């Protein structure tokens, strides 16, 4: 997983609440056998409408999603996180996230930032008026900054440490490489093997 220290990018204001995982990535996309290529499925139903915010040319290349409350409710599908990441989002800001979605996002390196609704509103207003307005999500300082806005956010220390260091579960386990190899070297020879190597 890529490390997340600080990120500055343009934003997409998504003025909808209760965006569930079916809206983020519809079920028929789940038959795919990869973790990438979900970008076209992201908000698929809404994107059929040319006035949908993601379809506006000035939003191309935006990397921060400023969403309404209760983002990511519904099923546990990790595909919702993959779809946002495949599209190019690095961070999502909302006043409230569904638990499983938030857990999945932090596991995959998509930073989900919780801010008070009035600050979310202010960020949405700002970026609606000026699509080019840069928004900075600074995980080291635990701060979101944009023109005229500086807002602190909380994140549990363990999740923050993993994101700052780009550690997924596998990387964390691999930090115990010495323990794993020590165990392997003591494994009895009678244990089964599927192939000779």
């Amino acid at each position, binding site marked *: *997983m890529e490390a997340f220290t600080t990120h500055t990018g343009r934003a997409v204001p998504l003025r909808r609440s209760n965006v569930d995982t079916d809206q983020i990535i519809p079920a028929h996309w789940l*038959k795919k*056998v*990869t*973790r*990438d290529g979900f970008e076209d499925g992201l908000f698929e139903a809404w994107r059929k409408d040319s006035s949908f915010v993601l379809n506006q040319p000035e939003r191309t290349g935006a990397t921060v999603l400023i969403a309404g409350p209760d983002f990511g409710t519904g099923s546990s599908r*990790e595909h919702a996180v993959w779809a946002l990441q495949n599209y190019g989002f690095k961070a999502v800001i909302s006043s409230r996230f569904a638990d499983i979605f938030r857990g999945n996002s932090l*596991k995959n390196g998509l930073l989900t930032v919780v801010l008070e609704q009035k600050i979310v509103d202010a960020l949405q207003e700002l970026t609606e008026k000026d699509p080019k307005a840069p928004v900075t999500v600074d995980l080291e300082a635990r701060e979101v900054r944009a023109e005229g806005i500086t807002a602190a956010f909380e994140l549990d220390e363990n999740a923050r440490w993993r994101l700052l260091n780009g550690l*997924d*579960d*596998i990387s964390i*386990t*691999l930090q*115990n490489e010495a*323990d*794993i190899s020590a*165990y*392997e070297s003591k*494994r*009895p*020879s*009678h*244990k*089964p*093997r*599927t*192939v*000779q*190597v």
Partner: protein
Amino acid sequence: MGRTLAEKVWDDHVVRRAEGEPDLLFIDLHLLHEVTSPQAFDGLRQAGRPVRRLDLTIATEDHNTPTLDIDKPIADPVSRVQLETLRKNAAEFGVRLHSLGDVEQGVVHVVGPQLGLTQPGTTVVCGDSHTSTHGAFGALAFGIGTSQVEHVLATQTLPLARPKTMAITVDGELPEDVTAKDLILAIITKIGTGGGQGYILEYRGSAIEKLSMEARMTICNMSIEAGARAGMIAPDETTFAYIKGRAHAPEGEDWDAAVAYWKTLKTDEDAEFDAEVVIDGASLAPFVTWGTNPGQGAPLSASVPDPASYEDASERFAAEKALEYMGLEAGQALRDIKVDTVFVGSCTNGRIEDLRAAASIVEGRKVADGVRMLVVPGSARVGLQAVSEGLDLVFKEAGAEWRHAGCSMCLGMNPDQLAPGERSASTSNRNFEGRQGKGGRTHLVSPQVAAATAVLGHLASPADLNDQSSAARTPAGV
């Protein structure tokens, strides 16, 4: 204080133990199939990681494979893509794969034991809940999710919190017509589909010790249907004899060392389980399910229960819903339930002993008019063994369909499905709504009951056939 079998195997696999962290366990055997592995390989690819232990990893194709025309391209595009993806991934990462058409291809939980890879005191994982099957050898075996599959591929370990242990003791002699399937269905009905939650079950007692290896696999297979993390049986001479001589069994000095270790894998006299259940084997009878979860079962001689008889409101509601879906009436004799389809197969009952048992009952008889009987060996090798014993001919002569190996109608990911409203007697493990096809109705049964049901056209045990033949021999009007 002594330790249980599960605790011994667990302790022997701890790579790292630290305060406030789950134990990091080493995994001895990782089984893969086409459905739950694609995103795991994809994750490895994106992170630029190799498979850490190719020598502890093996893949087979089972869930999507057709059981007819296996030499033709697979018609369903989704199934085809999943199989092709596994083939590509196996080639790219160097994983041993047994594809459709290969003699070792088959249901992943039949293939591991058959190759002698499943051994006592090992940890076995697979992205499939019925991995509990392998616990029959005294292995600690459990199903995992796709992100854990990736974790094992990359590290050969898993961080896990230790489950509690439950003893299920079955004493007494099982009556002659009672099989392992009847026993496990009765256990699940007794403890409920959530009864094993958070536990590793250990099946023990004289009735368990007398079971063959394949019967033990049937029992452990369905541990997950009681909600358990895993199910285990202590290894003994039956286990050792089953493994000896198989392709991946230890040899020479390794065999001796292995057996010496395996003999230590017993729950100590003074060990304590977190929970205990005792069952009198002698009190059991052939058992079938009437509802839509594996805990909704009853002896074949009983009737469909009246939902009103349940004190617990949620159980009553579940029973009402189940009867509605199953199209059954309270009080109806289970033996009167007519079926359209009989399925013999799956990782629960698709091994050679199961096929022999079913064949011995249909031999010289005919599948009832209007009933379709599908016999699907659990693996290509089981199929070959059955053919060498002439079982395929017995089935065909009786009017059953003899198919190629795979999961088949156990979950209907391939074309073998029930049509809406159709009813089956199935030797598989799940009778959930739509499991065998949208709107399909499933009764879980043993291979013996499946075969007798195929002949009579209604739920029946082999004993009912004797009644029938003596009736048939009695001249009319006498």
